[in-house]
């Protein structure tokens, strides 16, 4: 080892890497939640999810810019920007489903997938042309809390907010799907669309709701993460989306706790690989782990084993 540390230094370093991993992992998890939920209900890998995330961030940037111009500041800007971003992105998610996925609902599974990729490329280029291809500074909407000032070199306000939001969203989604009427109808739609229709469930409405919730989650992730990173451009959705997708697959796609677990495992792996080996190899470690886990557990870390419908 190139650093000669005392034991306590090593422990501190370990804890710091752990926190880095948790931060990065919860970022992945927050995006992966929307991915995995849509997949869980209609078995579609929504590649445009990353773009919804990016659109959420851009909306928040515009709203906060306008509000700052009119003299608003602090948390009021944060909440307004967040709410409008959520509404706007949900509208996008709803529309995308109606335009790009609904007509293909009875086609082979590959068709909606290709349609999703097309939608993703379209939205990226649309934002690039309508806004800018340059990096834009994103305001620090989440303040650095006073009470954290002693430990903010370990973990800052935005990191903590992302971590807590991830846990809350995970819990809320699980409750929604398991215990509410809508959740029950969603699960029924997921199991068998025809049967669900026969017992009087409006499956079009269920799928729309799924997309609206998924897009809302993407927007929340977009605003929080952009505020942590401090810069956005039209391409952020793609890179974040790929990693979030990896996290969702790692945890077991379709499983809500799986997305969070997968995200954290991925984040921690990357963080420790960087800390103890080299950041040159962080992706190598991350994807080697993915391959390994998929060989041992093809349905992911905590994914259910799905019986193939014939």
């Amino acid at each position: 080892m190139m650093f000669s540390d005392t034991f306590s230094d090593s422990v501190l370093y370990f804890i710091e890497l752990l926190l880095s991993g948790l931060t990065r992992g919860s970022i992945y998890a927050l995006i992966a939640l929307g991915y995995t939920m849509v997949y869980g209900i209609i078995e579609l890998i929504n590649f445009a999810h990353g773009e919804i995330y990016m659109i959420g961030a851009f909306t928040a940037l515009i709203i906060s810019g306008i509000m700052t111009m009119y003299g608003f500041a602090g948390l009021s800007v944060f909440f307004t920007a967040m709410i409008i971003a959520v509404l706007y992105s949900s509208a996008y998610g709803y529309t995308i489903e109606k335009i790009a996925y609904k007509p293909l609902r009875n086609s082979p599974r590959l068709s909606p997938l290709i349609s999703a990729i097309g939608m993703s490329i379209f939205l990226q280029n649309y934002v690039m042309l309508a806004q800018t291809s340059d990096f834009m500074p994103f305001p620090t909407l989440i303040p650095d809390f006073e009470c954290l000032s002693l430990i903010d070199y370990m973990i800052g306000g935005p990191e903590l907010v992302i971590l807590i939001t991830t846990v809350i969203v995970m819990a809320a989604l699980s409750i929604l799907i398991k215990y509410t009427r809508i959740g029950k109808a969603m699960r029924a739609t997921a199991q068998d669309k025809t049967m669900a229709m026969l017992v009087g469930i409006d499956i079009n409405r269920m799928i729309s709701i799924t997309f609206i919730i998924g897009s809302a989650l993407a927007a929340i992730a977009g605003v929080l993460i952009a505020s942590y990173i401090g810069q956005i451009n039209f391409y952020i959705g793609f890179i974040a989306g790929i990693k979030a997708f990896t996290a969702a697959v790692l945890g077991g796609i379709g499983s809500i706790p799986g997305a969070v677990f997968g995200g954290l495992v991925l984040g921690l792996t990357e963080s420790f690989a960087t800390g103890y080996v080299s950041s040159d190899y962080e992706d190598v470690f991350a994807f080697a782990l993915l391959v390994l886990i998929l060989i041992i557990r093809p349905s992911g870390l905590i994914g259910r084993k799905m019986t193939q419908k014939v």
Partner: protein
Amino acid sequence: MKLFFSFFTLLGIIVFTTVVFAADTINLGVAGAHSGDLASYGIPSARAAELVVANINSRGGILGKKVNVWTEDDACKPELATNTATRLISKGVHVVMGHICSGATKAALGIYKDMNIITMSPSATNPDLTQSGDYPNFFRTIASDDAQARLEVDFALNVLKLKRIAVLHDKGDYGKGLAEFARKFIQQSNKAELVLYEGITPGAVDYSAVIRKIKRSKAEAVIFGGYHPEASKLVSGMRKKRMDTLFISDDGVKDDTFIKVAKKYAEGVYATGPKDVSNNPMTIQATVEHKKKYGDDPGAFFLNAYSATLALLNAIEKSKSTNYQDIKKALQTQFVETPLGNIRFDERGDAVGVGFSMYQVKNGTYVEVK
């Protein structure tokens, strides 16, 4: 058809060569990409040569002779560049301004060397061209690729007097290339310890793990090879973790977007960038001439080519000779006033006084560090 053209080309060469030798002119060869996908790098150079030569001829030429420009296209392809060189030699050129791309320049240089022809490139940045010592006939008016790394390391070691330095890069050609030079220079200097050398993944959502690694390495400064999006994430991350580690980077970071994005965290960041010559009267004049003749703003390497042409012709004038050794000596000893400043060349062929300056962010703008 082809035969027809070849015949005319041959005829042309014979006729013109005769004319040339009879008229006893100074022959300047201009080689570079004037066609193909890299033509935008070569055409400004050819135009620069035309402008300089037109000026000189209107004042009566040099040593009482008119200057003739021979332009040949190599499309930036090494395999074409050798032909280009042979054609220029057959036209009796005394000096060559070119080639444009490093690969093509390297391919052609051997041929010029055998014929004792001085060659000066406005744009070939490959370090080997001057540093290998293989091409004593080669000069250039652009800083080599490692010049930025050299400046960064020299600044860190001699001006800031740092002892522990971390070198990071973004794994790209540009960033990694720079970082490798920086690593080499630090290790060669024996003045400081290289405590960390790592590549980071561009576009990753956060760099907190690598930032903690920098902190643990107790580096006094980070030298980063790469572009501004990663640089601003790194700098903001370090400052948020209350690290005051200095940040030194390259012209990929010397961009106003960096300051716009990193905001208050950008303050104090060092970055190298091309020397600002826009206030030089010769630069202004050359740009105006170009606008007058071609109707638009000059393209890439125009000023470098303008300066190279001036330097070559000046060397012939000062040495009163077209002899290889005489021109070479004049290039190395005589200063010449160009748009890039008052320049001469070192024994390896690199222009002294051309290159990069160190800038630092102060109150939201890059200010040259004097």
